[in-house]
């Protein structure tokens, strides 16, 4: 399902003394099958953008096109359930949304709201709990007896079980240990590949952005500051660095090396393998003095 934001502006708490412009003139295209990463400092409007992707927020200016639906400020929207089912959002700290007596019931909650039968929902719950790397025994436990990391995975399973076409992730690995982080990101990426989903990921990790994304959007002060492929973004990292944002470790290493040896590699490398090849090739040629 294609999603497209066209010159979207959003103000929180319109007509109160607390009115606040959160995002303005944001245009982003997310064609079906894209892996999009959004990066930017805290408060730059990333979460606000995400909430437009399934019509939780209605833009105060501009349009949001979700599949064949058009969300604008004027029209009162009806029947948003289909959108909500097709665009699943994993919020920041999703473990706060758990409420059922058992993990199984909590995972089934989403699908059953969308009219899936109990039988089918339970089947989905078993599949989803495996996907997030938890044993099936956990299904009968109370979600409040689990560790923080396990709760996070259960909450993610709850969204996966809705079987959305688009998965939206708001810093899904914040606060997890490094191994858990990698496991979860790898899981989302393999889902993205095998099911042909669209994925939108908000992250502070430049490594994740460069490794998984096809497209990167950089947000700054509520505006789109830069967009492009990881190669484009990281091969001219001046803009990023000016905002005080990081570049992936590999790129940082390459930049340092170029500077201290006063050489230029032929391209910007995003993975360690690429960089070692480049270095080997440069050494074969003999480093120019």
């Amino acid at each position: 399902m294609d999603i497209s934001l066209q010159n979207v502006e959003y103000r929180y708490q319109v007509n109160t003394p607390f009115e606040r412009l959160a995002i303005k003139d944001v245009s982003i295209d997310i064609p079906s099958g894209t892996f999009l990463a959004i990066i930017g400092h805290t408060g730059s409007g990333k979460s606000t953008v995400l909430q437009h992707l399934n019509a939780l927020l209605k833009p105060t200016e501009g349009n949001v096109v979700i599949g064949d639906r058009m969300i604008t400020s004027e029209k009162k929207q009806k029947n948003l359930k289909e959108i909500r089912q097709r665009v699943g959002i994993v919020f920041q700290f999703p473990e706060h949304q758990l409420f059922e007596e058992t993990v199984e019931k909590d995972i089934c909650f989403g699908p059953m709201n969308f009219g899936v039968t109990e039988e089918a929902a339970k089947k989905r719950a078993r599949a989803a709990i495996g996907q997030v790397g938890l044993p099936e025994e956990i299904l009968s436990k109370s979600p409040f007896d689990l560790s923080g990391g396990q709760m996070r995975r259960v909450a993610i399973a709850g969204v996966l079980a809705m079987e959305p076409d688009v998965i939206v992730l708001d810093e899904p690995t914040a606060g997890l240990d490094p191994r858990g982080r990698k496991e979860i990101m790898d899981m989302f990426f393999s889902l993205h590949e095998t099911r042909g989903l669209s994925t939108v990921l908000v992250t502070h990790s430049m490594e994740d952005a460069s490794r998984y994304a096809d497209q990167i959007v950089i947000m700054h002060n509520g505006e789109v500051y830069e967009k492009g492929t990881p190669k484009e973004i990281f091969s001219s990292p001046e803009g990023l660095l000016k905002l005080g944002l990081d570049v992936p470790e590999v790129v940082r290493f390459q930049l340092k090396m170029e500077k201290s040896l006063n050489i230029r590699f032929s391209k910007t490398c995003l993975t360690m393998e690429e960089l070692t090849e480049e270095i080997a090739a440069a050494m074969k040629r003999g480093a120019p003095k």
Partner: protein
Amino acid sequence: MMDKMIFGRYVPAESVIHRMDPRSKLVLIFLFVCIVFLANNMLTYGLLTVYTFFMIALSKVPVRFIYTGLKPVLLLVIFTLFLHLFLTKEGEELFRFGWITIYEEGLRQGIFISLRFFLLILMTSILTLTTTPIEITDGLESLLDPLNKIKFPVHELALMMSISLRFIPTLMQETDKIMKAQTARGVDFTSGPIKERIKAIIPLLIPLFVSSFKRAEELAVAMEARGYRGGEGRTKYRQLSWGLKDTAMLAMLAAVTLVLILLRT
């Protein structure tokens, strides 16, 4: 979704009312609540209304904000009006339409009582809109100080109040967040049959309770870690100071009271 709530919210501004001593504001509100009951005719109610709107103007809080925030309460006020309108059967008959008969006394009572209700809400809103929760509790603690003599736990009461007031906005944010998360999982909070909507409260309330308990525990630990041992011997960072404007405000209220007594019938 909870954007328009104004209860317990502080709107920063530079105004006389904002700068008043919280003690004088509390006393003022308390007295106002008492003198509202003195009004019993057009003139006296008119005077109270003028006084209330004068205070709103002084507070510099945008009227539009107060209006949108009080809309839900306005419904209650209108309900009160209709209740009196239809149920009071005294005085001259004014108007008859089908099974509805409206009497003079009903109209009078309805208007006066709902107006009284409305003015009380407005005045207390001015208090919370112009005074930070901390100020309110400091003021209350200072006003209730004499009760310490009879072993009444004034400090604890004030602390409880300030903590609850402090967490109203946090709770609102949390509610908004969880509502959004559950909406994304297919819950419909805003439309659909009543039965479904009541059922939708559960996925909202349980996470709220869980996080509130967790937060309370964390707060207790954090307070103890910083050496909190209760009110005894504790010094204050903010000192309250009663100024000329506080005396002037109370004098104005005294004048209003006097006029009310003269004008009431």
